[in-house]
């Protein structure tokens, strides 16, 4: 157990994926920090409106989506470890992560359509603008992430092994965790606070 863990974790001083991926991730983190601060400032301007509009959101759907993404992230992290061990189950783990991620998209589509049916649309109030635009931009990230995971999956050979290094799955994994991490904050800001 201890020996297999030593192999499965990344070596010290190692940049996950390749350095370039972190240009994207770092840039995205900075931009989303700007998003979060813009939202917090707008909320201060219209406190009562934001609180009453937030109460209309279905928090259980937000919770469900958080659980889906966290579990999907776990599958990706396990897949990276499996690739390092040379374990042929990496492919199945990755497929599981993609299915869970698709679940997020389905829940989101259901949530949007339910909100629109209730008359809570893009321009209903200033909270709804933030709600739709932030979750929409995040959803674009989810879709890109799913595309990246599918691409990574397609790089495995028939026997379920990956030739070459682990950089590709590490890099796409890091992007998928970024998607997860941004949702954790959006969930807190839009649904909980």
């Amino acid at each position, binding site marked *: 157990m201890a020996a297999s863990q030593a192999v499965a974790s990344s070596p010290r001083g190692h940049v996950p994926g390749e350095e370039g991926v972190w240009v994207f991730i770092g840039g995205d983190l900075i931009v989303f920090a700007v998003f979060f601060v813009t939202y917090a400032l707008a909320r201060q301007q219209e406190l009562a409106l934001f609180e009453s509009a937030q109460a209309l959101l279905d928090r259980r759907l937000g919770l469900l989506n958080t659980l889906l993404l*966290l579990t999907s992230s*776990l599958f990706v992290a396990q897949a990276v470890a499996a690739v390092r061990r040379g374990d042929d189950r990496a492919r199945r783990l990755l497929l599981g992560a993609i299915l869970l991620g698709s679940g997020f998209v389905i829940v989101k589509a259901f949530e949007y359509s339910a909100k629109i049916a209730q008359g809570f649309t893009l321009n209903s109030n200033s909270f709804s603008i933030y709600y739709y635009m932030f979750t929409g931009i995040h959803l674009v990230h989810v879709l890109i992430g799913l595309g990246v995971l599918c691409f990574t999956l397609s790089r495995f050979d028939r026997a379920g092994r990956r030739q070459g290094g682990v950089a590709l799955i590490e890099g796409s*994994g890091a992007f998928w965790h970024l998607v997860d991490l941004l949702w954790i904050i959006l969930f807190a800001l839009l649904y909980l606070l």
Partner: protein
Amino acid sequence: MAMIWRSRITWVWAMLIAATFLSFETMALGNAFLLRSVILVIAFTKVLLVGREFMELRHAPRWLLWGFQSWAILTCLVLIALFRT
């Protein structure tokens, strides 16, 4: 398959799930500044866990690890300040 799941990252995942439910319940307690801060601290603790463990930044070079961690801590502090009211 069983052996895969007995690993450090599975524990991390369990903590993340527990933290998610914890913040969900905290919200139900009401809407005081203290509770809002607790929710933000829980959220950014989860962010740090995802970064350090899932993204494997705890083994990454210092500039990368601390770049990420200072982003998380700074953003969290700014948001707590802005959610005062």
